[in-house]
């Protein structure tokens, strides 16, 4: 059913880092009921762009990411990217191996044979002194930073982030958002992030994809051209307002 074509030169946007052409995804519930989780979803990501997907909770945002990551193959349609693309993923939870040190967690995620100097990356993320600790010794914020280090270490062609700062207090989340932006600007790559936080989306993204309620479909695409350093609170408020007008089911800004 799933047709994951990994080739360069996709039909719609020849230079896109990722092209998603999903026609639908159905689940069969325990009662045998056919649930329509994701509808028609067509979009592509320009290389080295930062795209955020926003939408009401339960609309199929995470399912969409899982299809792109190859964790969910039960869809109709195509996900295209260069087959050599290395993907760095940050999940909602850090998902570190508790029995391996911070550095081992990062190294184990590197493709076999890829030797990458990690000193600079650890320094950028403020992890230099934590390399030998075990995940159980880290605060929630530090564990997220390790998850970011793991995703960036393999020099990804595609960075996939699934609400990476959810369930953190706002101060920590804001600090991590700024950190993510710094690391991403120093190591540019195509990024796709799911979030339910409109303020987060308009702060980070070049482009925001607004999903409608389940089954997820793309209701609007917003390009944000304002440089990130000029995106102050009033600007973000106005941008979030415009997004909310596009998708009537969107939650309020946090």
């Amino acid at each position, binding site marked *: 059913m799933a047709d994951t074509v990994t080739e360069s030169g996709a039909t719609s946007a020849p230079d896109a880092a990722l092209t998603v052409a999903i026609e639908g995804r159905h689940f069969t519930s325990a009662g045998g009921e056919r649930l329509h989780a994701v509808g028609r979803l067509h979009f592509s990501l320009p290389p080295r762009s930062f795209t955020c997907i926003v939408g009401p909770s339960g609309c199929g945002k995470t399912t969409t990411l899982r299809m792109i990551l*190859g*964790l969910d193959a039960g869809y109709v349609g195509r996900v295209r990217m260069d087959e050599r693309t290395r993907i760095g993923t940050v*999940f909602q*939870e850090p*998902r570190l*191996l*508790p029995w391996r040190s911070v550095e081992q967690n990062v190294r*184990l995620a590197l493709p076999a044979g890829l030797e990458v100097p990690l000193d600079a990356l650890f320094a950028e993320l403020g992890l230099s002194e934590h390399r030998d600790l075990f995940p159980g*010794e880290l605060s929630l914020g530090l564990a997220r930073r390790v998850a970011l280090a793991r995703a960036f270490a393999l020099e990804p062609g595609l960075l996939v982030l699934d609400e990476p700062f959810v369930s953190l207090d706002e101060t920590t989340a804001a600090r991590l958002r700024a950190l993510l932006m710094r690391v991403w600007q120093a190591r540019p790559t195509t990024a796709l992030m799911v979030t339910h936080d409109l303020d987060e989306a308009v702060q980070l993204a070049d482009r925001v994809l607004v999903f409608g309620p389940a089954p997820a479909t793309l209701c609007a695409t917003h390009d944000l051209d304002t440089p990130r350093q000029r995106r102050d609170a009033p600007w973000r408020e106005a941008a979030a307002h415009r997004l909310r007008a596009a998708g009537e089911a969107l939650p309020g800004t946090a």
Partner: protein
Amino acid sequence: MLLALWALVAVWLQMRALPTPLAVWQALLTEARSGELAFHLGATLARVIAAFVLAMAIGVPLGIWLGTSRTADRLLEPWLVLLLNMPALVVIVLAYIWFGLNEVAAIGAVALNKIPNVVVTLREGARSLSRELDEMATVYRFGAWRRIRHVVLPQLQPYIAAATRSGISLIWKIVLVVELLGRSNGVGFQIHLYFQLFDVATILAYTLAFVAVMLVVEYAVLQPAERRARRWQQHRG
């Protein structure tokens, strides 16, 4: 305490069935000096190790398979229940009848008694494997070996430790029965021999000597290995 109580009861009863600790000690020295003790202890220990390795080598992968595949679980469940409830003695006797009175039959019979136990424990462990870490390993394209070594085995470690613990004690008890029934060396054989001579002191000497060996295995091998495997947990703040 125990030793004093034993000595007291033995002196008071003055029976052949319960020798004094001193008599047992002397029997132990006699057997040790003649080299018999070391020979038979070694034979039994070798069988325990062989049967244990065999049982784990078959039971662990089988348990993981049953824990992760519903089809396999449904297919093999009846066999598992059958083997779990099969008396050890029946397995041993049948193995000797079918495969002859040889070492392969002996060790195979012991391992077969232990395997269902290992399978059930590991199946439980495999059912509790984290799906989140599994997905992490998938998106980061962990190879099979990297996944087993760094993701799966550390999660199964407590279950493997439990299977080892219960395994070694169960196995050494069954090995003695196997030796008694169809081998001409080992602690079980010696106990059988001295049973016929009604030499309780020597029987106890062999028993205690082997218990001592198993204690050494427990404290010198199993516990340090477990501590090593759990090192990461001790760092928890």
